[in-house]
């Protein structure tokens, strides 16, 4: 299992693309692997014949574990320079048989990755199917690897940060105008997201405390804005690719980048380094019609901006004569979840206020 990204420690084989006995060329994709960030192919390190598959589909192994053996002589396993072949000691075989444990799914902590007696017993004690009140009604399954990873990340974030959320209404008339007025070729996209992102980065320049990361005790304010943009993958979950040095991009460039990233994300073509290293994140679930949310901060950042639906509302504004009048205007509610360990409400409100002013005066 190669190290697919700096922080990756393990991966799951999703699908084998070749079988035992197949001839493989160097660089030919052998299998699809899922880390908690991306799904990617593993190219063959050499030409030869696939002699043995050591990791089954659905099995998770640590970085460094052998996935398969390629025989260079064309014969299965005969002259391969290998470590010990997969070995199950007598007690491991017996316990596995007695308890119905699939050894293919048991991680080995013995020497060389051998499955030890303790490993099997541990697998016995943590069965896949727990005594659930729903057992009789529906067949039990398992969340996808990515879903589980997202879940773990979210849970960790909520357990780590002192998460608070502040909301502010914002008049989007100018933003909408700018959007509609955009040339067809400018690829501004369907949502106001690139404009809001651009505006937010301008405000971050004046409110640097929100473009920061907090890892344990280590608090870092960043000069550049590496902007994470949440992309929904539908049932498969969500992913937050990062636009590096996003502060240097124009609205149009941002639009292009966001659309590109989203496309590649949905095709599972992201590289592992495109999903890390962000300093601030924007999420835009508003396309589905929700008004407010309580977004979870993308660790180890200290804030996340949430852009919800833009809806027409009847609001009270001052006319040119200073009188209160009711008008129909496109409105949205900007949400900011922020970490009370690094920030306080005033800062959050000031940021949102500054962002709102910018957006309400937007002139493209």
């Amino acid at each position, binding site marked *: 299992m190669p190290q697919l990204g700096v922080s990756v420690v393990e991966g799951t084989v999703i699908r084998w693309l070749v079988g035992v006995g197949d001839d493989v060329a160097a660089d030919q994709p052998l299998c699809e692997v899922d880390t908690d960030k991306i799904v990617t192919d593993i190219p063959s390190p050499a030409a030869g014949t696939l002699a043995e598959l050591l990791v089954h589909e659905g099995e998770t192994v640590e970085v460094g574990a052998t996935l398969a053996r390629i025989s260079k002589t064309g014969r299965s396993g005969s002259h391969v320079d290998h470590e010990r072949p997969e070995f199950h*000691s*007598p*007690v491991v075989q017996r316990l596995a048989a007695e308890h119905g444990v699939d050894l293919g799914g048991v991680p080995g902590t*013995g*020497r060389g990755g*051998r499955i*030890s*007696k303790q490993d099997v017993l541990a697998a016995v004690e943590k069965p896949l199917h727990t005594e659930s009140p729903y057992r009789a009604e529906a067949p039990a399954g398992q969340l996808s690897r990515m879903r589980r990873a997202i879940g773990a990340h979210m849970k960790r974030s909520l357990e780590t940060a002192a998460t608070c959320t502040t909301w502010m209404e914002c008049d989007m008339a100018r933003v909408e105008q700018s959007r509609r007025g955009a040339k067809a070729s400018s690829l501004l996209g369907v949502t106001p997201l690139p404009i809001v992102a651009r505006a937010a980065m301008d405000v971050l320049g004046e409110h640097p405390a929100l473009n920061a990361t907090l890892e344990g005790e280590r608090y870092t304010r960043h000069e550049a804005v590496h902007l994470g943009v949440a992309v929904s993958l539908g049932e498969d979950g969500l992913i937050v690719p990062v636009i590096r040095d996003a502060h240097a991009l124009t609205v149009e460039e941002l639009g292009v980048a966001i659309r590109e990233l989203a496309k590649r994300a949905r095709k599972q073509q992201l590289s592992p380094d495109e999903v890390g290293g962000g300093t601030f994140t924007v999420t835009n679930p508003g396309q589905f019609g929700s008004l407010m949310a309580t977004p979870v901060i993308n660790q180890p950042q200290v804030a996340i901006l949430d852009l919800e639906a833009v809806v027409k509302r009847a609001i009270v504004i001052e006319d040119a004569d200073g009188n209160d009048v009711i008008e129909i205007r496109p409105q949205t509610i900007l949400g900011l979840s922020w970490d009370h360990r690094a920030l306080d409400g005033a800062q959050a409100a000031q940021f949102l206020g500054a962002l709102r002013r910018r957006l309400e005066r937007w002139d493209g």
Partner: protein
Amino acid sequence: MPTMTYLEAIADALREQLRADPRVFVLGEDVGAFGGAFKVTDGFVEEFGEERVIDTPLAEAAIVGAAVGAAVVGMRPVCEMQFADFVACGFDQLVNVAGKTHYRFGLAVPLVVRLPSGGGFSGGPFHSQNPEAWFMHAPGIKVLAPSTAEDAKGLLTAAIRDPNPVVFLEHKHLYRRVKGEVPEGIYETPMSARVVREGTDLTVIAYGAMVHAALEASAPEALDGASVEILDLRSLVPLDTQAILASVAKTSKALIVDEANETCAAGAQVAALIAEHAFEQLDGPVRRVATPDVPIPFSPPLEQAVLPSVERIRDACRDLLDY
């Protein structure tokens, strides 16, 4: 409960049996007036007289043969070979006469042959042997090898009261180095194994002096907190197969330590039993630490190099634990 050395415990057992049973008598070289080469029978001739503590000629075959003769006419002789190594001179009488008599004639031969055994003090090739395997291999002879003072007394008592020829291995190195609480009065230790320390990760099987080496080698702090079970065999014939297999079933890993020369030592038999009867319990190969097949050398660095050291045992434990 009094505390005494391993040697004192042996003397205690002998003394009590001489007092309790007029059929018991002691014979060997220098056991009477001199009190024995290791002073086990010190003071005995004064208490029991020359007729019950007999200074024999230098004649191991006659010592053992005469013991057989006395045993079949109603006595309970306890022979001493001055060093275990010299039992070779009485081997024929022990194996061919004593060991085979009951099987052939239904005639019991209740005798004990005490063997001061083992190395570790520059005794050289003829004063350092552990010959127990020779007698495990001979039908009709029981073989005992205690490691503690309490067991030394209890097992010698059991040996003297047994109606069969019994070879009793008293490890010289333990004579004065091992002390313990020893119950007063007459008691017998069963001819079975004993769990000295309970554990879950590895079983180390040993007897005699090697029990102490194994204990030291496998202390939890020495092995990153690993839980090592130590099984003291105590009796080689009969061998406590049940205790051996129960321990291996629990830990799934077995290391056997022999001070005797490796080939066909007691540990080889234990290993074969484990491989045959506990195969499906094993999570690692059955390993042995033993003295290589060499006469025990005299010079300390040579002797230390061949006898199983605490370090060698510890390394073997570590290796198996990591398997």
